[in-house]
């Protein structure tokens, strides 16, 4: 390690050594980071605060602007008393849990196949990336065609086994499944690739040792592979959960939240209250309460987040 201050040292000793021009280096660091922090604060943190303020007021819209009046908790009272909001919350939570669980199980299965695949692995990986890069709205339109009750391919296929062709988007349970299928198709490949990354880091010798002990493939998977994948899986789950919680595009196009409001997630409800009913204050209350739930979830997972940072820093 040189005594120069500028080239970044990577050990604790280098970092704390007082030689060179430490003030300049940290000032440079702030100059480099400030634009990012500024933009992020301006466009994300500041609006979240703004949204909280809005949610406690009556927002009057006119063609020239908007104004806040009547500071009260009325918006939250309306939200909490609303059966539509409760239904949206239940749907969102249920959908998040189910979709992440399904994607995780399937993702691990696909990753196991990918890991063992020798020929054409690159091709399969390339194919898997296409759904991930697909515009969700487009895949939603495609699925709405496939699930169409009159001439959809899926309806026709299922109709071969039932007396009457099913109306996939017509009942709460099947509409839920339809969204799930569309989401799983788009997201499982992505989970699979992350899991695969975890799989390939597992040292082959661990498996060999297990085999020597007479462990079968099934018990090897449960006793060796899965525990070693824990960190990878935890991160995948964390990100997927928080993303699934904000689901909007798929129900918007595929079900419009129906039948009834049984597949209406919080994000769609919030958007509708704001831009369909033009009730900005109540919409902000829906949005702010959603943000609060996500924030609490983040705090719960803070350790996982910090672990991500810490792990990398040590490396």
């Amino acid at each position, binding site marked *: 390690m040189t005594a120069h201050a500028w080239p970044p040292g990577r050990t604790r000793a280098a970092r704390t050594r007082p030689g060179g021009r430490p003030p300049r280096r940290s000032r440079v660091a702030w100059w480099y980071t400030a634009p990012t*922090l500024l933009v992020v604060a301006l466009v994300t943190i*500041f609006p979240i605060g703004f949204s909280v303020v809005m949610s406690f007021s009556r927002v009057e819209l*006119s063609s020239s602007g908007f104004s806040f009046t009547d500071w009260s908790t009325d918006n939250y009272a309306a939200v909490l008393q609303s059966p539509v909001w409760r239904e949206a919350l239940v749907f969102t939570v249920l959908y998040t849990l189910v979709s992440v669980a399904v994607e995780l199980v399937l993702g691990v299965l696909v990753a196991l196949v990918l890991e063992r695949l020798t020929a054409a692995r690159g091709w399969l990986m390339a194919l898997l990336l296409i759904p991930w890069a697909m515009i969700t709205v487009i895949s939603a339109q495609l699925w709405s065609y496939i699930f169409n*009750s009159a001439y959809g391919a899926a309806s026709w296929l299922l109709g071969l086994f039932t007396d009457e062709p099913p109306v996939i988007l*017509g009942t709460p349970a099947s509409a839920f499944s339809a969204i799930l299928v569309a989401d799983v198709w788009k997201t499982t490949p992505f989970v699979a690739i992350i899991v695969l990354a975890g799989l390939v880091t597992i040292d082959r010798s661990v498996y060999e040792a297990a085999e020597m002990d007479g462990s079968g493939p099934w018990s090897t998977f449960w006793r060796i592979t899965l525990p070693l994948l824990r960190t990878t899986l935890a991160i995948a789950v964390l990100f997927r959960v928080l993303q699934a919680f904000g689901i909007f595009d798929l129900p918007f196009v595929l079900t419009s939240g*129906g039948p009834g409001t049984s597949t209406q997630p919080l994000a769609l409800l919030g958007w509708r209250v704001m831009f369909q*009913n033009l009730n900005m204050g109540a919409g902000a209350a829906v949005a702010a309460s959603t943000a609060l739930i996500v924030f609490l979830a983040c705090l719960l997972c803070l350790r996982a987040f910090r672990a991500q940072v810490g792990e990398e820093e040590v490396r």
Partner: protein
Amino acid sequence: MVWRSQRAVTVIAAGLALGLTAACGSGGGSADDDGPVTITWQAAPFGDRSDDARHYLVDAFEREHPGIDVEVVSAPTNVDTNRASLATQILGQASTPDVYNGDVSWAAQFASAGLALPIGDHVAAGFWDKFDPATVAGASFEGTAYGVPLTLDQSFLYYREDLLEKHGLPVPTTWEEVAEQSEILREAGDVDYGVAWQGASYEGLTCVVNEFLAAGGGGLVTADGSRPDVAAPGSRGALEFLGGLIDDGVSPRATTTYQEPQALQAFTGGQAAFLRNWSYAYDTANAAGSGVAGRVGVTAMPALEQGDGTRASTVGGWNVYINPHTRQQEAALTFVQWLTGAETQRLMAERSSTIPTVDSVRNAPEVRELSPVLRASADNDLVSRPTTSPYYTQVSQATYTTVNSMLSGSLSASEAVRRLASDIEAALAGRRL
């Protein structure tokens, strides 16, 4: 440490925002006074399927007004999405679309939110004389007209003339008859279903419920608009009948996903013998490309035997509105007045089955002669939706979400009535999201 720096960042951010405001806020374009001006018109295709009214109207207008070009922008199929996308655009002070077609039920909400130009302030008072005063009132808010009636609409019952003839059945006048005849036609294997209608979770279902409740002797809200009226004795029966149509197989299960296009398709594809739809369906069902062209009859909406004989038909239709932020107000006003002029209304009546809004055109014998739909409308008992409430949107949402849940089997009719009553009451009081 982090919190302090974030606060500092927020302060700087606010300052930056102000700077950006100064720099970019004045970026509006200026209207070009020379040469033709262009206005955009957001409208879903209307008129006849094979003869889109937007195209021939624009052609005719541009011939008469060479100084104004009209550019058509397609509107989303779903009425509610259409409204939300217009609201985000115009609330955001977009200058286009300059002119847009909007449902008659939007007038109060759009006027109060500043989404429509008070056209009444910009045209001569005599302009409105050619319309039915009730139609103008429906397009007004606090005494000023914000929209100009473009098409007048109401629902009708369409039926397969050939099938009724084949079985010697009369044209039905009650829903019970529709159900019975459906049974006969289905058993004979002529059709898969009896009647197709709009049961999806959207505004169209509110229209259906509105007329069923009226046929049953009740309504969504009381006459003074202050309270829900769904607890009226006939309401539960009417909703039960509606749900029974699906449960008994008279209407397809998929009705819960049907908007106008899907219902129309079930009829034109020959799967359903009857269809509840608006006036445009007549010409579309008889046009080339329809599987039942030339075999379609139209009649007034049926009554419910359990009700008081009201042949309730929900009033619908489209107004044209002007964007208050348009940079081409004069051209937009010219276009809107032209669209709703007697000449244009006559042209539309000749080329499609839409009902003209101009009284003299609608009542002209030669126009009546042209249109079986207009003749059928004589027997319709028109019922309005409670659109004068500033909370109509919420009332409608409460209605269509609850009834759609009932239709898909998640609620019984009596539960639906209870939930409707409490949700509509909350909506009218402004307590519903």
